[in-house]
């Protein structure tokens, strides 16, 4: 993935559906967004309108944060050694989750994100990414249903 950054540190997530690369500028101005195949060109990425930048930042942060939280919950449930590397593609079953673990993970996610996952949807949750996708969809639906209380 191309990167427009000279950041000392960068956070890259292999999110298959968003393909966004987040980086923290060294001046600490927050996030510069580089979208692959999206509507933001490299130039406008540095100077997006305040509103779209914030909305993008929130969406981007939500997905990364979601993945992080899912990882946390999976680690806890499966009592994974700290050296176990988790990626969005990591399969629960390959990590040793049986059906009881998977249901407990889903329950943990429901509590963490205050959502309700239908049993049918929970069948589709086999990887960390899939969990994050289902969560983000449900959280978004919740947000749309409630009167808009968008953060600034």
């Amino acid at each position, binding site marked *: 993935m191309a990167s427009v950054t000279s950041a000392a540190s960068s956070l890259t997530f292999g999110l298959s559906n968003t393909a966004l690369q987040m980086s923290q500028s060294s001046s600490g101005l927050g996030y510069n967004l580089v979208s692959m195949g999206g509507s933001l060109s490299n130039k406008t990425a540095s100077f997006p309108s305040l509103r779209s930048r914030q909305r993008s930042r929130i969406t981007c942060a939500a997905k990364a944060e979601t993945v992080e939280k899912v990882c946390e919950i999976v680690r806890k449930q499966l009592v994974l050694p700290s050296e176990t590397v988790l990626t969005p593609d990591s399969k629960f079953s390959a990590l040793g989750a049986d059906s009881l673990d998977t249901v407990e993970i889903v329950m*943990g996610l429901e509590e963490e994100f205050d959502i309700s996952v239908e049993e049918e949807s929970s069948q589709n949750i086999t990887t960390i990414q899939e969990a994050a996708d289902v969560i983000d969809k449900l959280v978004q639906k919740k947000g749309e249903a409630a009167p808009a209380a968008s953060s600034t």
Partner: protein
Amino acid sequence: HRRLPAVIPTPPVSASPFPNPKSQYCCLSRNFSAALTPLLPVQLPSRMETHLWYVVPDEVKSAPLLSKYMELLPQSERDHVLGFRGDQLQKSALLARTLVRTTIARYQVDGHLDPRSLRFKRNIHGKPEVEWETKDGFCPPPLQFNISHTSSLVACGVTMNSLIGIDVEEKRRRTKNNILAFAKRYFTAHEVEHLNAIPDSELQQQEFIKLWTLKEAYVKALGKGFSSSPFNTFTIRVNTAAQESFCASSGIAVETLDSPQNLTNNWQFALLELMGSHYVAICLERQETGGAGKAFPIKLTARKTIPSVEDELVSGTNAVVTIGGSVTQF
């Protein structure tokens, strides 16, 4: 992607049979170039019988033996085994595939005894089945099987004709979530009541595990996948006078929520305590009933095995204790 390398002339002795991605060698020792000991045939279960086979992974320590087991599997299954993270998970996955292949091969259904030649497929809902070769008018027998495994136990149930589902779990398995919160979310009201009525938290935990394994076994027997039978759409009922917990004479039945007054008579259950450490739940499609809708007890033969090494008939010993359902052990 990890694959078993070809036999290398001087492999170092290794504790683990599983190829370390950083190392070029795995333990395909030259000393064990002979094939596994030929499998001893066993008689097919009769239509009224259920065979239970199990392996205790901790008792299978020989790395060369595990390598030989790996050789029984087609590449796709080897890849699947190696996809698990860590030796222990890989080992129980390997033993599960080995147990299924060697057990079914031993029944010599088509006159063969080669576990390698068995092919498996999944039905439209994902339940694994044997794909028999149909040649020269060979009519495959209605052999049914189901596997379940934890890191400490691998089990396979086999019947002739009866759909079967089995589930195994460690007795001391603890849920991370509070049991009643979990049950309220995923079980039915009756089951929540049943658990709620148990004052001792240790016993309550065990009852929860028993219910879980029975529910799993039912869904696996149905073979239609978990999404077609969410756990809160059917109740496992235990018929005892006390109604407080399972005991050996308790009948276990399933009742689906869409026909509440109509206890589904199609399915019968057994709940066993294995080696004092595990619960094994078995759900079978009922073949025939005795007079007035009464079911025959499940005729169970249980064998502990190390594939290609030894079998031990354990039914009727205290290694296999019936704690629910109507079971006769042979």
